[in-house]
């Protein structure tokens, strides 16, 4: 595995290597290099199995992390390749030419994260959602509970009590009603 990574390092710059387990590595590379790296890994290093392609939303950094998980049948190692792309203009090179089934992941990402993969087959067709009008739901700024409450109105008639507040109310109401404390809270 070391050798593979060294060979890869000669070609491009690898930002970080994490060895999570004996059979699991993660590397971070630049967005531009993805096609080069993947085709190198697939053709030269025998990482022939694309286990998945997924995104993680880092909203506070304004980035999407894309993870390509590859597997090598010979050395039996999983290699995760991480790429960071901009959240605003989220667009990525399509890899359906390397792995025909990648279109499926890309179509899902387009729908659930709003990441575009120009050139990928059927990328604009809806995948699991139908008639979706909000922002892509897997983005972190989409609040699913609020949407659910707004759209699917829950069965009414439920109330709950916080034990702390309830006991205050019941047991030392008078004291509680006085100013929380004598301290100025500024």
């Amino acid at each position, binding site marked *: 595995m070391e050798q593979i990574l060294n060979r890869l390092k000669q070609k491009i710059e690898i930002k970080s290597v994490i060895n999570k387990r004996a059979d699991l590595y993660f590397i971070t590379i630049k967005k531009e290099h993805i096609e080069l790296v993947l085709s190198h890994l697939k053709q030269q290093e025998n990482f022939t199995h694309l286990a998945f392609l997924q995104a993680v939303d880092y909203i506070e950094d304004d980035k999407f992390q894309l993870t390509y998980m590859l597997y090598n049948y010979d050395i039996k190692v999983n290699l995760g390749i991480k790429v960071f792309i901009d959240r605003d203009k989220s667009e990525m090179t399509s890899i359906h030419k390397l792995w025909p089934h990648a279109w499926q992941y890309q179509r899902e990402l387009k729908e659930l994260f709003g990441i575009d993969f120009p050139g990928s087959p059927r990328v604009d067709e809806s995948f699991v959602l139908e008639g979706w009008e909000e922002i892509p739901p897997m983005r972190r700024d989409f609040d699913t509970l609020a949407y659910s409450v707004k759209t699917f109105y829950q069965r009414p008639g439920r109330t709950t*009590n916080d034990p*702390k507040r309830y*006991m205050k109310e019941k047991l030392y109401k*008078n004291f509680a009603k006085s100013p929380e*404390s004598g301290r*100025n809270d500024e």
Partner: protein
Amino acid sequence: MSLKDIISPFNVWKRAAQKPWTIKDPLNDRPGADNYRGFHKNDFDKCVGCGTCEDICQNAAIDLVPVQTVETDMSDSGLRPKIDYGRCCWCALCVDVCPTGSLTMSNDYTWVTDDPEEYRFIPGADKMKWDDCEKGYKRAENFQLIDFDRIKMNELGVEERSSSFIEMVKGYSKEQAIEEAERCLECGICVARCPAHMDIPEYIKAIREDDIELAVQILYKTNPFSASCGRICTHHCEDVCSLAHNGEPIAIRWLKRYILDQVSPEEISKILKDIIQTNNKKIAIIGAGPGGLSAAYYLRLLGYEIEIFESNEKGGGMLRYGIPEYRLPYDQLDKDIDYIVSLGVKINYNTKISEEAKFNEIYNSHDALFISPGLWNSIPVNITGEELPNVISGIDLLNKVTNKEEIDLGSKVAVIGGGNSAMDAARTAKRLGADVEIYYRRRIEDMPADVEEIEEAQDENVKFFPQTTPLEIKKDGSGLKFIWGNNKMIYEEGKRPKPVLIKGETFETNLDTFIIAIGQNADLSFLPTEIRDNIETKWGKVVVNELGQTSVEKVFSGGDASNSKADAVSAIADGHKAAVGIDRYLNK
């Protein structure tokens, strides 16, 4: 297509001759497995309404609602979980996490209805057909999702500690504190139980997030004596901790101490940023104990000018003079007092108000008074020989130790009493080099002292003689000779067991010193007669209303002199309440 392939499939007909697998009557023949996760049951006697089940439920299926049959009291919120079967997924996380073990599941699983609104019920309150079902899911013994074991605090060895007055527990390190804080379930039952109603879950949360500043701010909202309280508080909060039902409660007291251990006195004022705006009203406070000082603190924050009159040469009252140093080092107490003084509270030390004129002067020159004189008079045992010189009171002993006076107790000392002050006296005597025995009327488990104190005393080789009553003290050379009687316990429904002397069973011991620590009284003699007559008292304690006001409008009272709990945190709470009361009274 071989012939075998055509004939072999007819093998299916073999099954037709066999007995079918079908269950004849699936509705009755098949109860769920022994630990099947069926419908919920709740044992109301165990449940305290802590709401952990509500917190853990990922479906938001549980509501806490008041139930008619359950009263809210200090250890029970009076709320009970109401489960919405329109949400539940029968994962039994609520059962696993239930700290009291009251919530379980039966192995019943059939509930069919045409009205979906029915699917909301309070297990335990609403009669359900599976209530008597014995089988069903319960948390396994060796499986737990919450941590029932307290993080141990480093402490001195028995040898080391029983020979010196160095503080015996070391305090938590940061890792330990965070780990301990993580055990908290944030139920908040402790808040009600705490006399000062400190917001315990919040400051524990602050510890967890490692935000000491916030924690200090939360502490000072309700308790200006946190450094002291973090050591000697009677921590009733820990008794009601929901974890205490099946394990060890959160070390709330130690965590409080941990917060104050992290900050120096200078940092406290930086963190609190208290700004004082004066409002030109003056308040007098008699007694610089925890009650008086905390009243002073909160009143000062509200802008009042405070003057405190204290008979001793240092502040702190019982905290200083009634609690041995190995439990509360004086520098910690000074830390608390110094901060209050730094806000501009004026304390007149060594000022005993013994004349009426003096009191009247104070009474007239201030807008309101707060009196918290404390309990300094020891209650006698009322037996012959009590007046002998080697018979002293516990409070005197502690007082003398604090004042660093020379004390000679001899080699064999007996302490009578079962409260914290008895333990303090006994352990102090131990540290002064004596062999100590404790005599008590009832059994050990009936002792009002903290369990840890008793255990620690036992560790330190203090001998216990429960169910004994002193009958007579005689002088025997330089020492004393005692006659004790044995007691038997008489149990009555709903009452504390009553000790009754067994006639004829007596024994004798020889002692050098006898320490009486069965209780103390307030000394209200400083009050002028007309005020003393007007102030209502009961069992020797000043009667006050909810906000500390006595029957004399202008006079507020608190601390041991007026509350029956006689511990530091109640005094602090009294001070706080009275501060609020005075503020209301003056701004009416």
